[in-house]
C-alpha cells in the first residue's frame, strides 16, 4: 500500500465510501442493487461490521464475501441469518417501519428527493422505458430513513421527475405525513460530486458537502434546479487508505 493511495481514487469510489460511512454499526439496511449494494457491503467491512443487510429477495442478515450481481445471488441465502418469502420480507419486515435505512439508486431525482426509475418522457409513449418500481416505492415510504446514491448530472437531477416512482418529500413540507408515509424520507443523497440533504424547513435538497476537488459551480452545473448550498458547506473527508483498500477488495479493482 503506497502513501498516495489517499488521493488516487475515482469519483465513484468517493461516492461509495461516503455512502458507506453513513451507515452505523448494528443498523438494519434494506439494500437496492448496484451502487447501494456495494456501499452497504463496504460499510460491513469498515465502520459497521454488524450492519444487517436485507435484500428484497428475502435474505435477512446476508454476509456476502463480494457484492452480489443480483439481489438474489446464492451467496445471500447461504450466508443469511434467515431467508423468508418475498411477501414476508415486504409485509413483516419492511412495511411496519422496523428497518433503519433504505439504500436506493435513481434514474432521476428532483429537488424534493422524489425518485423516478420508471420512464423518461410520457408514460404511454416513453422516450426511455426504465425497469420500473421494484421494491423502491415501499422502501422509500417505510424505512426510518432513506439514502439515495446517484451520479450527479442535469439528466438525473431534475426540477421535477417525469414519473414519481418513489416519494421523497412529494411537493414539499407535510406531504409525507399527509400521505401516511411512516419513514422520514431521503435524509441523504450521495453523488459523485458531493452530498445533498433536505433543508429542514422547506424539504428541498441542498448541498452540504463537496467531495475533494469538486467546486460548487461544478455541482450546480450538474443540477437541473437552482441548487442551494448549506451555509456550512463542507468538504467530504477523502477515502482513507483502509476504506479504499476494502472497497477495491470488494470490487476487484
Amino acid at each position, binding site marked *: 500500500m503506497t502513501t498516495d493511495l489517499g488521493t488516487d481514487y475515482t469519483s465513484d469510489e468517493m461516492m461509495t465510501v461516503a455512502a458507506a460511512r453513513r451507515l452505523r454499526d448494528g443498523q438494519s439496511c434494506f439494500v437496492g442493487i448496484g451502487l447501494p449494494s456495494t456501499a452497504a457491503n463496504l460499510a460491513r467491512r469498515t465502520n459497521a461490521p454488524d450492519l444487517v443487510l436485507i435484500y428484497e429477495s*428475502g435474505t435477512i442478515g446476508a454476509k456476502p464475501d463480494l457484492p*452480489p450481481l443480483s439481489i438474489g*445471488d446464492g451467496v445471500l441465502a447461504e450466508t443469511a441469518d434467515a431467508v423468508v*418469502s418475498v*411477501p414476508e420480507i*415486504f409485509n413483516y419486515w419492511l412495511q411496519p417501519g422496523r428497518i433503519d435505512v433504505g439504500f436506493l439508486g435513481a434514474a432521476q431525482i428532483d429537488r424534493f428527493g422524489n425518485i423516478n426509475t420508471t420512464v423518461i418522457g410520457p408514460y404511454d409513449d416513453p422516450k426511455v422505458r426504465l425497469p420500473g418500481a*421494484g421494491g423502491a*416505492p*415501499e422502501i422509500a415510504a417505510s424505512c426510518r430513513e432513506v439514502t439515495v446514491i446517484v451520479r450527479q448530472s442535469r439528466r438525473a437531477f431534475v426540477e421535477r421527475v417525469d414519473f414519481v416512482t418513489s416519494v421523497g418529500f412529494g411537493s414539499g413540507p407535510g*406531504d409525507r405525513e399527509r400521505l401516511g408515509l411512516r419513514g422520514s424520507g431521503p435524509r441523504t443523497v450521495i453523488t459523485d460530486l458531493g452530498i445533498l440533504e433536505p433543508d429542514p424547513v422547506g424539504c428541498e435538497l441542498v448541498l452540504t458537502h463537496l467531495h475533494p476537488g469538486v467546486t460548487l459551480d461544478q455541482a450546480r452545473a450538474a443540477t437541473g434546479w437552482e441548487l442551494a448550498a448549506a451555509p456550512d458547506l463542507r468538504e467530504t473527508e477523502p477515502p482513507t487508505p483502509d476504506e479504499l483498500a476494502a472497497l477495491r477488495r470488494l470490487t476487484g479493482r
Partner: protein
Amino acid sequence: MATVVPLAEAVAELVHDGESVAMEGFTHLIPYAAGHEIIRQGRRDLTLIRMTPDLLYDQMIGMGCARKLVFSWGGNPGVGSLHRFRDAVQNRWPAPLEIEEHSHAGIANAYVAGASGLPFAVLRGYRGTDLPAHTATIKPITCPFTGEELTAVPAINPDVAVVHAQRADRRGNVQLWGITGVQKEAVLAARRSLVTVEELVDELEPRPGAIVLPGWAITHVSEAPGGSHPSYSAGYSTRDNDFYLAWDEIGRDRETFVAWMKEHVL
C-alpha cells in the same frame, strides 16, 4: 395429486393461447426450460405475470408470445435494461405490449390474496407515486377501525403458474430451498400449475430452509435438469452471471436476438 409428465406434454396440456401465465422465481429457480418450451410451442396472446420479468420474459416477449405484461421490475438485475421488453413498449416490436405495472410489494400481496381466496389485498404502498394514475388495479381503501386510508390491489389468480424447484418425489410433492420468493403463492393462486424440477427422487429428505408443496395442490410435475439456467437452483447450480452480462449485447439487437433464439431455443 400431481402427475409427473414430460415437459412438452405438460406445457401443451396446461398453457393455452390467450391465457394468463405466471412464471415465478425471484432471481433463483426461474423456470427457463418451461418458458422455452412455451416459446417452441408457439403460444400467443399470453398475459405474462411476473414480478421481475428477467431475461425469460425478455425472450418470450421478443418471440411474440405476449399480449400483456403484469410486472413490477423489468430489468436485467445488476446489468441494466431488458432490450426486448423496451423495444416492445417503445416500438411495439414484435407486437404491441400492454403493461400493468406494480411495485414488488403490490404484486407480492396480489399473489397472497390469490393464494388466500380473497378478492383483494391491503398494503401500505403506492401512496404519492404516479403508479395509481396509470394502473387501474390500484385503489384506495379505508380501515373500518381507524379511518386511515391504505391501498388495495386485486388478487392475482393466473390460469397457470409455472415454477422451478430442486426436487419432487414420484407423488408430485415438491421441495425447494434457498430463496423461495413468491413461488408458493403463485402456485396456490393459480387454477392450474406446473413445477419443473432438477431431479425426481424416491423420498424427499428434509433439508434446512426447505419448503414442501404437497402434490395434491399441484397439477403437473416435469423433470427438467438444469431447467433454471441462466438463473440457478441452489444445491444444483450457480447463477450464470456471465450470461446475464452477455445478454445485454444479445438482447440489444433484434437480429442478434432472433438468431440466438433460433440457435439455442427453437
